């Protein structure tokens, strides 16, 4: 993987200078690469990992499996589009599973809010054949980051 992408994947807040040092390349190269990658849609956006539990805010995430009827000439894309355009949908994937076709991540403030959204907006879509909603109770790890792990250094002083 491109080293700049790897660095940004782990921490998108790093400045160009810092990325250049870490990657061992010139800062101009970093800027040019990022500009190109953004324009080419390789870098689609920058985000922040937030552990909402610690932020003391009400937030709930659900994974919704959706069985859909694919459309002639369109496959799943047109149905997916009708679904991922909702602001409540934070992620949408086409899956290879036999049981369902789309996996959708929906975020909301309460189970009720998410439940209503699924019932009123997703389940009633013309080509949606069925949904199964799974609420996430606890997030242990996201994007490679473990949420509740405390880092401690138990290395003792040893001479070598």
């Amino acid at each position, binding site marked *: 993987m491109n080293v700049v992408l*790897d660095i940004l994947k782990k921490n998108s807040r790093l400045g160009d200078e810092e990325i250049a*040092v*870490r990657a*061992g390349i010139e800062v101009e190269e970093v800027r040019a690469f990022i500009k190109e990658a953004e324009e080419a849609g390789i870098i689609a956006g920058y985000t922040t990992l937030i552990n909402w539990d610690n932020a003391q805010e009400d937030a709930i995430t659900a994974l919704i499996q959706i069985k859909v009827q694919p459309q002639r000439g369109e496959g799943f894309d047109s149905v997916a589009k009708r679904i991922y355009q909702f602001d409540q949908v934070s992620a949408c994937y086409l899956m290879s599973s036999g049981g369902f076709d789309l996996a959708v991540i929906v975020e909301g403030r309460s189970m009720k809010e998410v439940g209503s959204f699924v019932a009123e907006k997703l389940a009633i879509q013309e080509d949606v054949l069925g949904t199964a909603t799974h609420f996430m109770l606890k997030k242990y790890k996201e994007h490679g980051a473990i949420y509740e792990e405390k880092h401690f250094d138990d290395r003792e*002083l040893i*001479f*070598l």
Partner: protein
Amino acid sequence: MMDVKQLIKPNISSMKPSGIRRFFDLVHEMEGVISLGVGEPDFVTPWNVREAGIYSLEQGHTHYSSNAGFMELRHEIAKYQSRRFGTHYRPEDQVLVTVGGSEAIDLALRALVGPGDEVIIPEPSFVAYQGCTAFTGATARVIKLKEANEFKLTAGELLDATNERTKVLIMPFPNNPTGAIMTREELEPLVQILKERDIIVLSDEIYGELTYGTVHASIASFPEMYEKTVLINGFSKAFAMTGWRLGYACGHPDLIAAMTKIHQYAIMCSPTTAQYAAVEALKNGRTSIEKMVLEYDQRRRVLLTGLRRLGLECFEPKGAFYLFPNIKKTGLSSEEFCEQLLMQEKVLCVPGDAFGDCGEGFIRCCYASSMKEIKEALVRIERFMAGLAL
């Protein structure tokens, strides 16, 4: 009253305790110290490896292995050495599993040298070479590696140190404490000298996975050197398994047999939980190593760039996880520099002369610490340097 001290063998009692001890005692009484001092990975052993160790315990695998180590592990070691470094060994009689690379160093020296023999030790390097040589009664012939050569061993230096008593050459690359590596091209002239002589090369390749921008070249992969090299490697640095204490030696069957004799009386066999874990490490550890190496590489650049910005000269080391900056311009000795840095700014580095006299004027900075700590250490070193009013 019996004077026990009197009974200790002269070559042991005359060994001076490492000066670094005093430092470590100081650190014990301080809080908030950032340590660039300890030479071990800050990463925890990858979970799949730990899990394999745990599972072996759950299954009740708590017995000895054969003296040389589990055959399955020796097979995996042979495969690993072959695919990673192009060095081919028979698991049956050319691989010995030891308690860390350190035991293998001790075994090799004990099996090979005694009073009257000479061991060539390029320095600065790992302290155990001198110590283990001293135990055997052999003489250490030190080569003072030069900063101008990026602390690599040159053919001229090797020739100067070689005589009819030379029996072993220690090749400590990738190097602790300098981070120096030797490429295949740089090994070639040494091979030309060594191939004509009855000298065994003890090649300590414990940092072999930790090279940046290049793959480690093993001297044992030269056909002329294969039989003359005892290759030492282990799991501590590559797989972040320091506390498991597991390493190995590969080499000529006669030498491995001799080393196994000592091993079987002194150690019996290496810890078996660690051996089970090591099998998993070799089979499925590639991803973890690559992740760690990428991270070390970034830290290496951040620390190197940072130290250079502070005006400290430092060659770019391509291996291990150490930087070895030159601090001579400060007018302080290595020990003074490290002690003052510790007392004033609570950053622990190790004086270069701890790794041999020629390390004077340098300090060892280990970058196996989190990026956050490395950056904070740089801030503190900058403050310290400003206070020196150069």
